[in-house]
């Protein structure tokens, strides 16, 4: 053993602590206090009865993605691939094409987000120069019966509405 050995100072050297048993009983007293108070009155448990009681989602909370639209209903996304470039999970797959709705030149013809691969880091939202992708749908539980159903396409992303007003969202620091 040639490695440098660092000797740590051990806490609890005195007999009282080394006896251990006393400390054990003290610890057990603490836990028993919790037990008995919960046992006699279980109304103060730190429990959310989830499916019935929904958690409160704030505007900054990163939920499922959506693509935003201009007021005239055309999509804001211009297929610049910033989100795809930034995505650490590589879950965004875009195909760009010629724009057909009269705005600028470029738009996505395919925009898939694989929610199974997504890690919900929100980098795509930060990278987007057009504020076209947001994670403000407030959807936190994504379920499906097969893998394919977790791939969100362009239409599904555009169809999902945001869960917050513009003011709330902006206040959240976006």
């Amino acid at each position, binding site marked *: 053993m040639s490695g440098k050995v660092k000797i740590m100072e051990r806490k609890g050297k005195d007999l009282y602590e080394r006896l251990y048993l006393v400390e054990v009983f003290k610890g057990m007293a603490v836990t028993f206090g919790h037990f008995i108070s919960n046992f006699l009155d279980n109304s103060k448990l730190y429990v959310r009865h989830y499916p019935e009681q929904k958690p409160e989602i704030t505007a900054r909370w990163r939920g499922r993605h959506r693509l935003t639209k201009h007021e005239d209903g055309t999509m804001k996304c211009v297929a610049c*691939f910033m989100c795809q470039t930034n995505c650490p999970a590589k879950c965004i*797959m875009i195909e760009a094409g010629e724009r057909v709705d009269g705005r600028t030149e470029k738009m996505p013809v395919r925009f898939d987000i694989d929610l199974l691969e997504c890690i919900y880091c929100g980098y795509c939202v930060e990278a987007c120069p057009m504020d076209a992708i947001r994670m403000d749908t407030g959807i936190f539980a994504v379920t499906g019966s097969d893998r394919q159903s977790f791939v969100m396409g362009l239409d599904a992303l555009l169809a999902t509405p945001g869960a917050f007003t513009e003011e709330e969202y902006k206040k959240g620091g976006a």
Partner: protein
Amino acid sequence: MAEKVKLFVNGQEVEVEAGKNLIDAFGAIGIEIPHLCYHPALGADGNCRMCLVGIEDGRPPLVPACKTKVAEGMKVQLDAEKIKKIQRDIMELELINHPIDCPICDQAGECKLQDYYMKYDGQPSRMTVKPVLKAKKMDFGCGVVHDQERCVLCARCVRFTRLITKTGELGIVNRTDAARVNIFPGRPLNNRYALNVVDLCPVGAMTSRDFRFKQRAWFLTKSPSICHGCSKGCNIFIDHNREKYKDDVIYRYRPRLNEKVNGYFMCDEGRMTYKLENDNRLGTPRVNGREAGFDEAIESVRRAVSEAKKAVVLISPNASLEQMFAAQQFAAAINAPVSGYSDGYVKAGDGDDFLIKDDKSANRASFALLGIDDSKTAFEAALNGADLLLSFDNDLSRSLSGDALTQLLADTKLIMVASSQTDCVAKAAVAVPVASYSEDAGSLVNCDGRLQSYEVAVVKNQPAKSLIEVLHLCGGEIKSNQEARAGLQAAVAVLKDIDLEQIPAEGIALTESEVAHVAA
């Protein structure tokens, strides 16, 4: 070695090549002077003013680096505050009317304006008036799309059409805010090198319709290679990318600088040959018209070879030197005559005096090196009495008419080892897929007798075997490029003193060709 001069940059002594301007001379030793309008092939224009530098010898305080030749003892200032201010101001000027198109601009990622903004400017815009609006998405012809708003009026494209192609389709019309690059009414770009303006354009004003919106520049892997579009052997970058869950696909070819071959340019047809690498490839082997496993196909080739009374080996003029040698050795082993017959690869009268050649194959010059006869008479003589024709990626349907091919195949069994799906492959008894040049490495000899090499660029998800591997599986002696090169050095006198493993980037001239170097 070229003559050297010593001079001072920011007070530090450096040694650079004599006779060049400051941008080129400093660029060669890694000191960058920003410039937009200057291009080595197009000469100095001096209109962008981005390359202004200071010289402390009593001249005017600032001179354009592109127009200034290096001189012994010169004291050049690059980092003075006033130089930096000029660069900042020029950038600000350029960006006054520049649209924020970066998200939709194909140039983003390889745009000089972006690079210089990040490096020399980095300030928010002070403009309060609206930018001047100009025409966007203009069709300039030849697959060039022009965006006048993005243009910085460096006139590289204009100079290209005047100096290089000498067609002069482009010009700058109007002045000041209204100045813009345009074509003459009803006279779009009409030359075979037009897409070079896309590469020349330092910003995204010129984009290629073919590449438009296909990929972002930063996704592309840029692998050096050699164009197989004609016998010129232009040096290229193969820009390819493997998207998630997809195959490695080539998106474009770009010219790669080689002063001795193609300079900075390549032709439009050559650019588009990337499509042949992507599409219509032979994927699964076929035996007697039905799909078969690779091993089964190889087995049937071996059986056909062993059963044949007389076999003929036909080699493609696109094959690399190593592949040709391996095929030649294979033919010698099975006692078959070798032919390089490929008249159909030559398109007489198509070539010009710049880069395009009549011969649309990349390596016909190697036939002469290896003593392979590519004449029609020799091919017909070899076929006489033969009952098996082994074609190594030589598409006979290009050289022979349909009837002639059918007639030929009536009493001869055809085995195609091919990279793409052709008529000939469809008629072959056995078809074995093989790697194409973008997926393989090798050496080529171009029309001027210049030996160049290329490396593997694209790796497909299911890579095809290289021709040498296929030959080896069919019973050939040579297992790899290395073995073929060793054999070549022993067999070919011209190659004896050349290290085929380490061919320099500019290639090696095998014969002192009369054809002068391309003036780039």
